[in-house]
């Protein structure tokens, strides 16, 4: 009790003068990225705070939908989201792109993999008809929109094509669901899959990639439109210069990210096109319906 009193007094003394008095910068992520990624996330969030010279707060939510709501209500300043939520939120309440990680040499893009159990006879996505399938987040591009788009192209919907499907709300969950044969196939974020292949090869060894989608704009770091313009710039600079500091390089290496780069909005047009097709073919699959239960 005595210690508590002393520290409370100390914080009262410190608050009015230091930067600590400013409201912390709130950064949100979902586990969809990588489920066992929390420590890495903490590191870069803390790094950003250090570089900015102001406190940061890490918020983790289970689904993109929850993070979108937080962004819309101004309860989160910065978020690591998928390209699909970005285009939706950008259209709805003007969320802005801040930066995006470059993972592959090709640029700030990634792919959607179709994976099956390593010993599965399935060789093509079409062969998964009548089987069990796993999506990640309903608002995930690679884990949901891309396979829905592929089904739409085939004139199918998940309900018509699969015997049963489920949402794991994380790409690593998808990999595990396939690895333990809970499902016969799943769509996963190529970055997550490759990250797992490097960090947990025993898990990915139980799976096999049978299909890779065309490149799409990678999951960006977005910022709330109302955030202070100077702060936006400062945060962007922190990200863009991350690979120039030793600690930043260390964090990037752990995240298997080459660097953060500035990306244009049109990078996500391919996602907009896929969404348009899927919405046209299966209007019942409104994005609003797909909420975590």
């Amino acid at each position, binding site marked *: 009790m005595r210690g508590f009193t002393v520290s409370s007094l100390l914080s009262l003394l410190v608050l009015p003068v230091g930067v600590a008095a400013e409201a912390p910068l709130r950064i949100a992520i979902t586990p969809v990225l990588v489920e066992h990624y929390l420590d890495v996330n903490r590191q870069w969030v803390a790094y950003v705070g250090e570089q900015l010279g102001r406190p940061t707060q890490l918020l983790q939510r289970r689904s993109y939908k929850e993070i979108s709501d937080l962004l819309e209500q101004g309860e989160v300043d910065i978020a690591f989201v998928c390209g699909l939520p970005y285009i939706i939120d950008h259209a709805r309440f003007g969320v802005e792109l801040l930066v995006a990680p470059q993972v592959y040499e090709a640029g700030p893009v990634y792919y959607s993999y179709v994976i099956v159990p390593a010993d599965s006879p399935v060789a093509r996505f079409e062969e998964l008809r009548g089987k*069990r399938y*796993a999506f990640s987040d309903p608002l995930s591009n690679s884990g949901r929109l891309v396979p829905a788009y592929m089904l739409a192209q085939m004139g199918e919907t998940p309900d018509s094509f699969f*015997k*049963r499907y*489920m*949402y*794991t*709300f994380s790409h690593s*969950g998808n990999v595990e*669901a396939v690895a*333990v*044969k*809970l499902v016969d196939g799943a769509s996963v974020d190529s970055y997550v899959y490759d990250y797992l292949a490097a960090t947990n090869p025993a898990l990915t060894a139980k799976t096999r990639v049978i299909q890779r989608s065309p490149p799409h704009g990678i999951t960006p770091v977005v910022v709330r439109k109302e955030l202070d313009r100077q702060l936006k710039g400062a945060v962007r600079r922190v990200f863009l210069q991350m690979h120039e500091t030793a600690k930043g390089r260390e964090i990037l290496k752990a995240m298997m990210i080459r660097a953060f780069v500035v990306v244009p909005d049109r990078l996500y047009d391919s996602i907009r096109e896929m969404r348009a097709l899927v919405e046209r073919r299966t209007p019942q699959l409104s994005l609003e319906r797909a909420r975590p*239960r």
Partner: protein
Amino acid sequence: MTLHAVHRWTIGTKLAATFVAVICAVALLISVSMITHERRALDAELRQRGVNLAQNLARLSVDLVLQDDLWRLYTVARDIVQAPGATVPAAQDRIVLYAMVVTPRGELLAHSDPARFSVGEPLPPDSLTGAALGATDVLIQPVVTQTDALIYDIAVPVVLDRQRLATARVGITTRYLEATLARVKREVLLIVSVLAAVGLGLGLAVSRRITRPLAQLSTSVETLSRGQLDRPILVDTVEKDEVGRLADAFNQMARNLRDSVAAMRATQQYLENLLEHANDFIYTVDAGGVLTYVNRKFRELGYEKHDLVGRPLGTLLVDPTRGAWGGEPKAIEVDVRDRAGGIRVWVLTTSLLREPEGRQTGTLGIAKDITERKEMEQRLRDSEKLASVGALAGAMAHEIRNPLGSIVTAVNLLATGPGPADAERQALLKVVQEESRRLSRILGDFLELGRSRPPFLAPHDLDGVVDEVLAALALTERARGKTIRKVLTLRTGRVLVDADQLKQVLWNVALNALEALGDAPGEVVVSTAREDGQVRIVVTDTGPGIARDRLPRVFEPFRTTKRDGMGLGLAIARRIVESHRGHIRVESEPGRGTSVTITVPTDGRS
């Protein structure tokens, strides 16, 4: 191992074995009880854990079933099986075999092993599943599988608002229980082993304390029993218990025994020395006459002990039939053969050796070698014989020469010369006559001495015999001027005697008495008496008596002091009296005369 083998164990082994057996038995009882208790406790704990897990699964499943969130149902089922709590940390042994959620119709919603049990497929219908799906409360079904140990299938209904959504099932294996029990058993075995080892050690230590003096005692007794009594091994113990007291008593006994043995040895040595160095031949024979001991003296015969011991005594004797082990108290003479073959003479006394019960076990012989003495005696006898023959011849020649010389002279005078006058002739003839008579008497005496005729006993009036002899004596030359008195105090009556021989005795004795008086006047008194079946004749003279040193030899022949006697009279007298089983005795004191007492039995018997 037979009971017989157990009998051979040392006390130490027996004690240690008892310790170990008791400890093992107690430990076994405790172990069985412990293991039983442990099994029960583990079993209960395992069931409880399974029930908890199944209830958790059911609770978590309510929302997820409603949301149809198969992924999270799976992760819950997965975590129940894989969570750290589902394994036994020490054994790394999974106790939860499976976790699943099943719809009321039997469709699988989630399974911890989706690779084998496809989600969305119906479970194969079996009685176990049927019972689980029908359970309204926690249902524990024990299942024995072929590959696993006993399994508890625990089913808990997933219920919301009394509506059954699904059934949560968890499979718990008792393998961990068995493994734990096996570990417990191993530990118990280890403890029992340690206890047994401790018991063994303790038993050995305790028993060693007890049995070490006993073992020493045993060794010491064996030593004593082998006869090594002089240096007994004393038992070394400081204990004051029964064994200690036994050891003390034994030590005292051993010392006493040692002292007694030493004393006995000394005595034995002493006796052996006596026997060995005795100047007599000493031997023993057993009842069969075989020599069992000879002393060192036998070396003088050329024999070593081993030459004789074990051989019959008879081989030593010249005449083996002589009972040299007869045990007669009298000494006997036996001839023995020495090693060189010479004959030795022993004077041997034997005594019977008897056991305390009286049975004869043999004979002890003690002998003196008298060979030399015998030879000497023989030589002495021979020389004495020669000497007495010489003395006899000399005495005879002397006795005969004087009268013969007188006769020769008288005869020469008669034969030569002009013829003597008639009176002279008569005197010469008388000389010849007297000297011839004297010669005849001398020769008669000799003959009498040499003749040894047994007396012809006949009843005679002893007084008459005495009268007759005294009357004849009174007529002799010797009696002239002497007084011969007869004192017949009692009537002697008829006595069985050889009258002629008795007359001779009386004559010789009385004549000696007269002669003892010499030329001086004196008196000879002859008295007779009868008492106690004997008659006594006493002849007393008043002569000069006999010198004290000569008195013992008066009966020996030729011991005379007289000029014209041969000294045969008393010798003859004694022989005759003794042939009558009587006695003749001389008493004398110089200057006070001599008294000769003759005693003969009245009936001729002694």
